[in-house]
């Protein structure tokens, strides 16, 4: 038996990586939420941090220029403005964005993430405040320790403080649900909520060639659902090299002698295989993979 056909599969899909959590709606359907992984969380945060710092610099420059331009009169107002901009960016930025319907900061939105309540209920304002207040000890405290320059005994104290506060910064790495300390405290988590497009049904395009490809029953029975999904993935990606390899392997396995273009062959075989497997599904049998009879 040749090595598994699943070699062309993409990196570990979410359902295998232990990041799928069940969320059963009141209607009784499980939505299979996928948690954001640590890398996505970190990227989203860095994006937000970049936006915050960018805004702060821009606001400072504008306020400084204004101050130089109008000399005197409204200096006090400008000073107040700057203080509130700083306070707002540090504390209000995350809260305000997560309070909106999308429950995501620009960084999270860019990565297709959102905050959700762990118990599946509505996400409340107090939860959002709680999860973001903790940033004080997750981000700003380690930063303070990092920026403190000391030597001797004080240096060791700073190092101890950095280690201690670093535990909070790296908290998401130490638990299964990738919770920040703030998530733990607020009863929230961050899930993927990507906007997917509904792509064309592959069986429809494959059906054109139904007449040209008359697979025998035995040929169609060679594979199960797992292989079907791998095949779907290969066709959707449309990389000629991979398609050629997969087509070659299927031809060999089912003993197909025709030499039609790989793409057409794969499409037709996909449509036929899916038809067969779905029929069996309707009769109550889901054929997991090619070893399942």
């Amino acid at each position, binding site marked *: 038996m040749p090595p598994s056909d699943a070699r062309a599969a993409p990196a570990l899909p979410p359902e295998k990586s232990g990041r799928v959590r069940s*969320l059963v*709606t009141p*209607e009784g*359907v499980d*939505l*299979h*939420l996928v948690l954001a992984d640590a890398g996505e969380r970190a990227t989203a945060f860095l994006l937000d941090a970049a936006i915050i710092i960018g805004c702060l610099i821009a606001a400072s420059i504008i306020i400084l220029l204004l101050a130089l331009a109008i000399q005197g009169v409204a200096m006090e107002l400008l*000073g*107040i403005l700057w*203080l*509130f901009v*700083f*306070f707002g960016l540090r*504390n209000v930025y995350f809260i305000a964005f997560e309070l909106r*319907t*999308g*429950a995501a900061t620009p960084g999270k939105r860019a990565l297709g993430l*959102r905050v*959700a309540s*762990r118990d599946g209920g509505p*996400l409340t304002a*107090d*939860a959002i*405040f*709680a*999860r973001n*207040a*903790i940033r*004080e*000890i997750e981000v*700003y405290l380690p930063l303070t320790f990092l920026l403190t320059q000391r030597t001797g005994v004080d240096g060791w104290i700073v190092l101890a403080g950095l280690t201690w506060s670093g535990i909070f910064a790296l908290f998401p790495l130490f638990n299964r649900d990738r919770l920040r300390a703030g998530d*733990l*405290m*607020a*009863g929230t988590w961050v*899930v993927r*909520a*990507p*906007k*997917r*497009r*509904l*792509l064309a*049904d592959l*069986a*429809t395009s494959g*059906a*054109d060639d139904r007449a040209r490809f008359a697979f025998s029953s035995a040929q169609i029975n060679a594979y199960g*659902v797992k292989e*079907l*999904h791998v095949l*779907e*993935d290969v066709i959707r990606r449309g990389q000629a090299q991979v398609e050629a390899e997969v087509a070659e392997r299927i031809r060999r396995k089912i003993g197909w002698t025709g030499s039609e273009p790989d793409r057409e062959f794969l499409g037709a075989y996909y*449509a036929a295989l*899916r*038809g067969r*497997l*779905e029929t069996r*599904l*309707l009769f109550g049998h889901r054929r997991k993979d090619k070893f399942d009879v």
Partner: protein
Amino acid sequence: MPAPILKSQRFRQEREADWSQLDRLLRRIDKEGPAALDDRQLLSIPVLYRSALSALSVARATSLDHQLVEYLESLCARAYFFVYGARSHPLERIRQFFLTDWPNAARALWRETAAAGLLMLLGTVISYVMVLHDADWFYAFVPGAMTGGRDPTATTAFLRSTLYGGQHEALSLFAAFLFTHNAQIAIFAFALGFVFCLPSGFLMIYNGCSLGALFAVFVEKGLGFQLGGWLFIHGTTELFAVTLAGAAGFRVGWALAFPGERARAEAVGAAGRQGAILMFGVVIMLFVAGLLEGLGRQLIVNDWARYAIAATMIVAWSAYFYWPRREASDAAV
């Protein structure tokens, strides 16, 4: 296009229009907010959501089109968050916060508030006694930058001048600075509660210490009464707010250490959300305190007037939080 041969294809073709309509509505809400939709569109969302959800169940059971199932899962999840997300009117929410949520949270945390208050008092008394006994302790309690010359070596005249010689320019800037600075500290005190209460407790004691040390210096020069007015005009509000922030931190740390019958994460979550409500209030109180300190104290130099404001504020806050009132549910009965 040939007639579909698979049942799953027919299934998809019959419902695709509904799904894409739901998708379009959700995308618009994402971009422009729920207000952009008219009533008919808003009302259609739950209906479309339920039909998409039932389609998802059917698709999982009968269709092997992986992409379709993934699409429906993400569509349903997005719709679910919208349909079951809490969306009360902002004004209604603010009203509820001031009428019930905030005072309720303050009342529920009375034990923690008392503990935080006692710790602060303890710090005050200890440092007061110590500084009276040996003035050198002052420098251990109060960081040098904060004193502005108000240390044991200062003359009576100078100390008196710091109490009344308000610099009248840039008062509102000063108020804004005090507010942002204090609010930051309060949020920090709350966040520190997550580390099993201790740092919040230290912060309370430390805060009391600088207070006590300052009092010791002024009392020695016979200016204790005057300092009280200078401090409490905003201090009753500010110290109360800081105490509440510490209390919210205590509640979280306590739930983390002793979750009781509930799971730890659940207990911490409940405590965190309750604390967060209180913290919203604390930020508001600190805003008031910033105004009193930045403007009121500089403009009002009469000791009795200062004390009157201080007393009014503490009575008003206490009555607002702790005055017995009927619960909303009782009122209905």
